[in-house]
């Protein structure tokens, strides 16, 4: 029992270490921009989690990240590099917006359901392209998903400046989502909506899939040792197709949540780099749904906090992107450092005992 607790503590240690490094980096950045690092850090956490409204905003921002990272966890676990979440997000967003706009004449829940399903399938089908190429042509999925990202971003940019442009405003955006396709809010004064609940329901579901099914086991096996996986007849092709489908589907859900529940339109830069941030979050959360949930909530709070601090103190925004580039690197470095220190302690102790 006691050794289990120690193992758990050792697992958390690099995360704590990494986060303190991140905090240090934030303070240095604040100092460089000419602010008082400690009070600005306090402000950051106040704007991130301080009141009910700010906390609900943090939850709201964490939900697309949570959806995408839970989806990405499956291909990453199997050693498949889907870096196309960004493109899948854009495709799903524009598909669900288009369905919502063109089916507005139907009574309330039908356009909503149609556009959520349409968005999910849009993301999933877009994720299947690299999977299909990997399976049939043995083309590296890193390249195809990277290329498809930009194809999606430019297609959406064309659509929102051309055929799907809002005729009444001057911005590059679609017309607002009609009321019959907007996801209703849970509380009237907070922006959380009913689709947000699904994200939290998904955490135990994915946990069970990964830990208690043969599918989860074969995923881990394929990720850990792809050569041995062939010997015990794991159907690699099926796994590639399924995991990419799941990841695209959940990315689609994230996009539908963002378009139908929060922004109520598709704009340029609607994804705010969620597709890329999530890649780091999956690793940072240790490929574990609960870890991913905690980290995405913390990340969302820090994003909101830095944005508001920058806004109120008049330093340029862009700090949060910088932090989320540095975050996975810091975590991994701290991971390695803790590993090395522990190893040296253990070796030392063994020698001493002998």
């Amino acid at each position: 029992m006691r050794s289990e607790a120690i193992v758990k503590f050792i697992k958390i240690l690099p995360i704590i270490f990494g986060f303190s490094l991140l905090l240090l980096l934030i303070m240095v950045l604040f100092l460089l921009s000419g602010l008082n690092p400690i009070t600005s850090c306090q402000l950051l956490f106040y704007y991130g989690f301080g009141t009910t409204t700010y906390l609900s905003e943090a939850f709201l921002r964490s939900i697309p990240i949570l959806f995408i990272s839970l989806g990405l966890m499956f291909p990453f676990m199997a050693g498949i590099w889907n870096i196309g979440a960004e493109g899948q997000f854009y495709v799903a967003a524009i598909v669900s917006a288009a369905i919502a706009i063109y089916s507005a004449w139907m009574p309330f829940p039908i356009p909503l359901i149609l556009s959520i399903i349409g968005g999910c399938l849009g993301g999933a089908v877009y994720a299947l392209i690299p999977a299909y190429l990997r399976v049939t042509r043995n083309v590296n999925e890193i390249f195809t998903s990277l290329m498809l990202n930009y194809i999606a971003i430019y297609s959406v940019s064309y659509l929102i400046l051309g055929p799907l442009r809002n005729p009444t405003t001057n911005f590059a955006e679609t017309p607002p989502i009609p009321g019959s396709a907007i996801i209703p809010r849970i509380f009237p004064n907070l922006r959380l909506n009913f689709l947000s609940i699904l994200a939290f329901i998904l955490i135990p579901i994915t946990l069970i899939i990964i830990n208690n099914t043969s599918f989860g086991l074969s995923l881990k096996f394929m990720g850990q040792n792809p050569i041995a996986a062939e010997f015990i007849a794991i159907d690699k092709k099926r796994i590639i197709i399924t995991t990419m489908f799941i990841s695209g589907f959940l990315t689609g859900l994230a996009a539908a949540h963002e378009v139908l529940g929060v922004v109520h339109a598709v704009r340029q830069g609607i994804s705010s780099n969620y597709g890329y941030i999530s890649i780091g979050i999956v690793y940072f959360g240790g490929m574990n749904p609960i870890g991913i949930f905690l980290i995405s909530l913390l990340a969302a709070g820090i994003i909101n906090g830095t944005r508001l601090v920058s806004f109120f103190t008049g330093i340029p925004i862009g700090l949060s992107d910088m932090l989320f580039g540095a975050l996975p690197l810091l975590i991994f470095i701290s991971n390695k450092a803790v590993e090395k220190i522990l190893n040296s302690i253990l070796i030392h102790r063994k020698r001493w005992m002998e």
Partner: protein
Amino acid sequence: MINFIHDFLRAVIRVSVPLGYAGLGELLVEKSGLLNISIEGTLWLSALFAFIVNYYYENPYYGILIGMFIGIIYYLLFGFLSMYVGLNQVLVGVALNLFAYGSTFYIYRFVFEWRERVSIPSIRSLMNDIKIPFLSEMPLLGYIFFNQPLIVYIFYIVVPIIFILLNKTIYGLYITSIGENPEVSDKIGISVFKYRLICLFIGGAFVGLGGSIFTTYLSNIYLDHMIAGRGFIVIALLILGSWSPLKTIGAIILYSFVEAFQYRFQTLFASIMVFLPYQFVLMLPYLTTVTVLIVIGRRIKPPSWLGKQYIRVK
């Protein structure tokens, strides 16, 4: 009309040179088996730093130098994290890209006192065109090829050097063998880490140089999204050129035709541009690459260890 074609072809060369430098740099790195996606972030950072230095010192060559320096630093950082710390190359690439997006946005506003300034800062000292005495008077080609800035002439020399280095010398063979199988290369006594670091150093210098051309020659202002995925375009064109220097340069020049066409003919053929929106031009290299991969995907072979991790077993 002939003047028009002349100008157009000159623009093709001018657009292709930054991409060409970046392509050669990334080619060297990928040949040695490292898949560096952070080429995009490196271009962003080097363009910005070249702009800042050029703005304050009014000398484009200082800008180029600082751009190369930034490129080297960023590529070596990538090498440190992926080779010595042992992180996945794709993850490091994505993270470094995010860092570059955020930090360029921040640094640009921080350096140029974002709130007080009303006008966009612009550079007065771009690189000058240098006419080469006899060659530039050649009937057709002189004006196109030999009426360019210094950096273009260096490019003419660099391409054959890289070609010879990779295809005709023992070092090229070492680099290729490291990219194909570092384990075996290490066993027969090629120092994998040393050659990879050298590749990262030279490659980073080239990529940084390519990025700094955007703000020391092509444009006199800096925009947040001025690179707009050109790093990824370079990766796409490398795939199209199947990791061979001359084919890659060919692919880059073909792409530059489309881009230069889009710049030059936008006003002239406005009716065509309705059918050919600018997003389509930017999308074209990706579309072509994906199509080519779909059609002849089996025949395009990347270096076998591209993107895989190599840990030395003692």
